[in-house]
């Protein structure tokens, strides 16, 4: 497969009177054709900055980017017609109707205006198309934004938090829409904080934290790679669970005693070893389940953003923050 989007070593420093902030610090990303690719990261990790840079809205301070095989920003005008994008709840001129807004964009981009009703229907705005955008609700504006991105029948669709403000039905519709688009051959790059959603619809993901890629790959790969290998063990009733724990610890495992008759075991060579060790001492199990990590666990672990009780985590606190300062580096 050929990548439709490649970023390597991307750097962006925002400068202001207060100092400089490294929003992107050598970021890499690859999106293969035909995929739905999830782009994840905590608040302020650089997702929007990456997408803006890719789309020519801001100038990078270093790095290399290609879109659809062409180097950008240099050749962006050549590929812009095939890249549909929304960047962080886009705003529109409020006094125009949805229809006018889209038909103006269609004119500007040389796309057939006849497609406008089609995309408005697709995002569920058909009956409100003749109303001014400023009268729209948050979710309706978001739908309009998605419609604008779809208007040019893109080969690559870049969506920055498209589910922002959508109702549950809308989110599910968006999921279906994305599946359909992907099935029709479109590549979708999707940034979102709704990890369950990402896990459901994405083929692969990139996780960013503090402006650097911390992991990437297919969803299954990422989950497997960060599988804790923990196993939940339930013992037969009336078994001495302290004894069982001791046996496993002696074999080098990390054991947490949970509720009655239940242990969580880490760092063992495999479930088979647990059964063997315990059976030798005539302790028998009635249940043995590997604890599967989900994307959220992996995300929290990798980005170091797991909530800690009694601590209010600040936005720039994350896995990489220990080695970095914020403003004024």
């Amino acid at each position, binding site marked *: 497969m050929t990548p439709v989007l490649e970023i390597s070593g991307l750097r962006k420093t925002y400068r202001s009177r207060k100092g400089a902030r490294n929003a992107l610090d050598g970021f890499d990303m690859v999106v293969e054709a035909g995929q739905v690719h999830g782009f994840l990261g905590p608040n302020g990790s650089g997702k929007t900055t990456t997408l803006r840079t890719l789309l020519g*809205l801001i100038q990078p301070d270093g790095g290399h980017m290609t879109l659809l095989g062409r180097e950008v920003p240099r050749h962006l005008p050549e590929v812009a017609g095939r890249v549909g994008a929304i960047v962080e709840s886009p*705003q529109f001129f409020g006094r125009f109707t949805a229809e006018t807004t889209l038909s103006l964009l269609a*004119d*500007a*981009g040389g796309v057939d205006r006849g497609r406008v009703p089609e995309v408005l229907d697709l995002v569920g705005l058909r009956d409100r198309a003749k109303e001014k955008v400023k009268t729209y609700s948050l979710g309706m504006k978001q739908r309009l934004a998605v419609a604008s991105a779809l208007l040019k029948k893109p080969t690559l669709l870049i969506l920055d938090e498209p589910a922002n403000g959508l109702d549950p039905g809308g989110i599910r519709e968006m999921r279906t829409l994305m599946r359909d688009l992907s099935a029709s051959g479109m590549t979708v790059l999707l940034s979102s904080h709704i990890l369950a959603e990402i896990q459901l619809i994405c083929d692969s993901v990139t996780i960013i934290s503090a402006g650097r890629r911390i992991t990437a790959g297919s969803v299954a790969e990422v989950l497997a790679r960060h599988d804790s290998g923990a196993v939940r063990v339930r013992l037969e009733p009336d078994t001495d669970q302290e004894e069982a724990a001791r046996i496993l610890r002696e074999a080098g495992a990390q054991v947490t005693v949970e509720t009655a008759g239940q242990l969580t075991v880490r760092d063992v060579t495999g479930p088979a070893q647990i059964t063997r060790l315990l059976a030798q001492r005539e302790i028998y199990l009635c249940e043995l389940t590997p604890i599967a990590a989900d994307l959220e666990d992996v995300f929290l672990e990798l980005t170091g953003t797991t909530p800690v009780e009694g601590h209010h985590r600040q936005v720039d606190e994350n896995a990489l923050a220990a080695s970095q300062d914020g403003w004024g580096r």
Partner: protein
Amino acid sequence: MSLVRAETRRLFRRRLTSVLLIGVVLVLAAFAAGTFASNQKATPAQVAAAKQEAMRQYQQAAADAGVQKLRCQAAAPGSAEAADFPPNCADIYTPRPSEFDYAWFLPETFDLRHEFPEMIALFALLMAAAAYLIGATFVGAEWHSGAMMNLLLWRPQRLVVLGTKLGVFLGWLAGATVLLGAAWAGTFRLIAEFRGDTGGMTSGVWQSFGLMGLRGLGLVLAAGAIGFALASLGRHTGMALGALIGLTAVQIGVYVLAGFSGLQFPEAYLVPLWGYVWLYQREVLEDWSCDGVTTGGGCMPETFTMTWQMAGVGSAVVLAVVVGAAMWAMRVRDVN
């Protein structure tokens, strides 16, 4: 071409564009109607009566002067009475018939040849103000609402986008100004026909009106371009309006500083004066400080004649700097 079409549609879809244009037309119409109502055509009888009145007043004044001269000559030198008169009785002022213009005694009548230049200036100023506002909101609202960012996602060529917007706006502005200007001239030609005087309207006079009109068009386009460029620089319509206030302050500062630092004609640094000179072709600035240049106790001021060419060059530099800055900022800035 598609961008040109899109921008044209956008310009005319904006309600403010139509509101301002209609507003300008209404003000102009009201002004023309007022001129029409307050003037009337002088009938031959009125002209004859006015001439008679002028002659009568002249004769009255001449007679009065004659009486004074006689009294002067009769007064014994050195007497108290003689002190009321100049030493030489011939110095007593004698009126001349040309000093009594019969036009004073006619009802208000519209003299196309002499009054139309003022009308051109009025038209140009009104259009320039509207152009400034339309230009500023056309791009200002676009930036502020985020619509510009969306547009850039479709057309990443930034200079092309901003340049097309400006070009489309100026093109339509020029069209509208020429059309309205022609209607304005036609209206006053008719007003002069029915409520005034079309005397002395040689082709040379029409030509000079035409040239003044062209300079007026230049003023309108420049105002539009500057409003547009300032709003684009500040990414907000309000920026153009704020800049206007700021510029006024700077102008006053420059004027005061120029005066302090002993520059001879501080008024020459006032941009509004350039606009005036640009329209009326020349203005003579006077320096009344009279450093030693006195003739017979009177003060002959030094003068400086500012021509429309000078004003034009000055304004062109300002225009180029502002529009250039807007384009440069468009090219390099981060769009958030």
